[in-house]
């Protein structure tokens, strides 16, 4: 067993699960979506991105690309949140919440792709 592979898989998977946890719930209800979960998803996503940096295979290029997409989506979601609450005083209206959650939904897709790619890579490797 390779410890670095465990850590790598852990972060990629954790990014997906946190993202899914945040995404789950009514799309426009702020009570169903915890800001800490979004923060955690973003941080884990960033760490996963950094871990994928500096790899050269075709698979890792795809992994890195999907990770960058995740970061982009989650940063956008966090920005929407910060602007709505702190910059403009609109507050967490259902419309704002729906935007944030749908952005995280996009990130969820990319995270899912990351995990699928990683699984394929691992399966191919063991054969």
């Amino acid at each position, binding site marked *: 067993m390779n410890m670095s592979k465990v850590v790598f898989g852990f972060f990629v998977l954790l990014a997906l699960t946190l993202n899914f946890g945040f995404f789950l719930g009514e799309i426009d209800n702020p009570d169903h979506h915890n800001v*800490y979960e979004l*923060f*955690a998803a973003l*941080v884990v996503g960033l*760490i996963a991105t950094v871990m994928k940096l*500096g790899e050269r295979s075709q698979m890792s290029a795809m992994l890195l690309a999907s990770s960058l997409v995740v970061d982009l989506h989650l940063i956008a979601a966090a920005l929407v949140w910060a602007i709505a*609450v*702190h910059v403009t005083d609109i507050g967490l209206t259902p419309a704002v919440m729906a935007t944030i959650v749908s952005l995280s939904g996009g990130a969820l897709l990319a995270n899912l792709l990351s995990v699928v790619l990683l699984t394929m890579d691992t399966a191919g490797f063991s054969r």
Partner: protein
Amino acid sequence: MNDSFAFLFFRRMRMPLIVLISAYAIATIGFTLMPGVDDQGNPWRMSIFQAFYVVSYTGTTIGFGEVPYDFSPAQRMWTMVSIYLTVIAWLFSIGTIISLLQDPSFRLHRQRARFRRGVAAINQPFYLVCGLGDTGRLLVRALSDRGHPVVVIDNDEDKIDALSVETHHSLVVATCTDARLPANLAEAGLRSRWCIGVLAVTGEDLTNLKIAVTAKLLNQRCQARARADEREVADNMRSFDTDQVVNPVEEYIQRVRLAFERPAAFRLYHWLQCGPDARLPDIRQPPRGHWILCGFGRLGRAAHALLIELGLQVTVIEEDPMLEGLPQGTVQGRGTQAETLTAAGVEGAVGILATTRDDVDNLSILITARALNPDLFVGVLENGLSSHALFRAAGPDFIGQPSSVTAGRMLASMSAALVEPFIAQIIKAEESTCSALIERLEQLNDGQPPEFLSFLVSERRAPAVARLLEQGSDITLGALINDPERGERRWPLEVLLLRRNNQDVLLPDAQTRLALGDRLLLAGQRGIGRRLASVLENEDTLVRALTGQDMHNGWLWTRLLRLASMGLHLRMFR
């Protein structure tokens, strides 16, 4: 391959970046958890946005103070934690970046990336010089003076560093790499469409051979020129169509032979092929009689064969008695000692050739032999250019410099297309012709070798001339150069060679009429090429040059002339 150094950077930066992200995340979360009090005295906790704001300015040591409200003791405690956390994370990252920048392998990657960019940015014909010895340096200097970008590779870092602090007239890109590997040559732009010549002038024959092979195989359009000290290697190079192979030994022998047999031809030959700063050699003709040859190495052997062939009596002085092929009567010892020289009969000798591999020995032979016999004709071999000042001060009758001879020969042949046939003609020409040529060429450039230029009389290369010829005009060679009105020379220019139907004519007559398909070799003052080009390409200038009158061929002017000659006629509105 191209962005490998970016990959290396990210791979090394992985850990510091993860530490940095984690530190920021922990500090941010911590701030949102610490209980605080707002300005009304109500309990208050930071949102993630506010916490990230505080961490951002604390972590970068900017420190705006406690915003939006004064911190509670718990928040201050966490501020301390986050300061140490983030500062340490930053120090770790920056330390890694700095150590990475100083890492030799990373620096190498960066240098190579810069070199590749430098080569890729060249967008005009350039030369690739392999090897930066004396020859390489002369070539780089001369080629950049001619305005060509030069790419240089050598495996000695110090030489590359020394080159990078010199100033050149055009772009010189250099890197330290092994020229024997084809990949490195390709990286140096061998396959670029702008690469017009590869010059293999390293100190090793086999390296030069490999470079020449690689150049010929990877880029058929570029010319490969190589130096080869061994005759076998030279033959090998010629066997696969290397465009020019210079063997310094053969070249030296050729010049010594010319000096013996045809002094004027020697002066011309040597002068034109010794680099751009060469001076016309003032040499007395080597006398015939008893000669002493010091050193029986590669050059010594060839010189011995030549002297014997010229029918001279030769005594060889050689340190190593076990060398193969030493002639009878060889004096064993070093030519630097008076006894050895006396034993070889220096008092009765007419000349001495010092051809050992050691420059100091050669100088010493020169001085000792002169002391024993002041009338001696002394020829010395100067292996490296570093002690050139000593050689000049010692004042031998003839200096053989393998590096400047090699460079000079390559430069002459690169300067214009017809120089090689011209040199071949000189070797065959009469002595009087050579003397006359020297006299005419010497004035062109204040004693320095003239600039060569060659052109083809064709629609593309000399459109104005071609058009006039097609209209039936006669253009003589003399008319190109002389001013018909004043009957004097217009330009410091000489026509050296005319090639017509594969026949070379040395110094064609001024009355020769130009024809389409002629190739001409001219020599002139430096910078004459550009002025001549304007005449060859512009009909107006050419007609003015040939007749001294303006040719009014502007559209409006032609129309006005027509009007004037025909009176006011409605033809204008046709």
